[in-house]
């Protein structure tokens, strides 16, 4: 056991995190009022989701994915006033992204006619997984800064222990145990926000179990 458990429990929130604490509906309201910090937060909040739908679910090449990505946010910016339910921001963005990805795939097959059919649309299971992933990231955002950072760097940004240690000024030998502790915290936070069908479902795995990417 490490002498000091510095998972950042007492780390102060950054100023930029103030908009990060807003609900989607509050964020939409601020964007409509022309609050550019709120718009930056909206883009930040949904950028990974839009990117993943385009690249992972629809497997668009990067140049097409970039066009879709910019198109999605341009349309969100232009049409924010038409959103009827401000709490439905995420499904609206998801639908918009899916539609633009399909348009892009169709345009590609028109430009390069071949015997190949339009690639299969991703199954609901893939899109459902991305929704689950979004929920996990919401829970992750609620963790102390150090936990959020270390889990994101290791699992989402695929950084090595050494890189993480250098970036966060931590001994590389302590990274694995910190990741385990932070995952436990995440599970607790996630279960609190997303109780399973039979209430709390702790799932298998003792604290500190070996976790692979």
């Amino acid at each position: 056991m490490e002498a000091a458990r510095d998972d950042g429990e007492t780390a102060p929130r950054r100023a930029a995190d103030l908009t990060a604490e807003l609900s989607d509906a509050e964020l939409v309201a601020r964007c409509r009022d022309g609050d550019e910090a709120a718009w930056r937060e909206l883009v930040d909040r949904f950028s990974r989701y839009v990117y993943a739908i385009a690249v992972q679910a629809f497997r668009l090449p990067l140049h097409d994915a970039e066009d879709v990505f910019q198109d999605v946010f341009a349309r969100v910016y232009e049409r924010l006033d038409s959103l009827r339910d401000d709490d439905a921001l995420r499904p609206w963005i998801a639908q918009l992204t899916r539609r633009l990805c399909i348009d892009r795939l169709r345009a590609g097959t028109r430009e390069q006619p071949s015997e190949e059919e339009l690639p299969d649309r991703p199954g609901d299971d893939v899109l459902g997984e991305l929704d689950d992933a979004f929920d996990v990231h919401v829970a992750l955002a609620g963790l102390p800064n150090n936990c959020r950072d270390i889990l994101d760097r290791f699992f989402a940004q695929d950084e090595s222990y050494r890189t993480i240690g250098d970036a966060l000024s931590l001994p590389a030998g302590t990274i694995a145990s910190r990741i385990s502790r932070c995952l436990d915290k995440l599970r607790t936070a996630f279960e609190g926000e997303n109780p399973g069908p039979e209430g709390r479902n702790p799932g298998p795995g003792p604290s500190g179990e070996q976790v692979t990417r």
Partner: protein
Amino acid sequence: MSGYDIQRLARLIGMLPPAPQGWVEAAQELPRARREVGQIVARAEADAEFRRALMADLEAALDAEGVEPTRALLDQLRRHLPR
């Protein structure tokens, strides 16, 4: 999501890597880019010489005005400039 095992949580974190920073910044700069587009289009509508310069070489005309010709700005201007 029916189970909350650690492995699944870890996998789900990994499913949402960051989008390329340049993409995110371009989208975040949308309000400013829209303002710039509005100003440039208004001037192009009122100033025939400026409009001709824009139509002849959009990037050079923006450079001459001290405006950084980002891809997002160029795309927007091409859509909105009077023909």
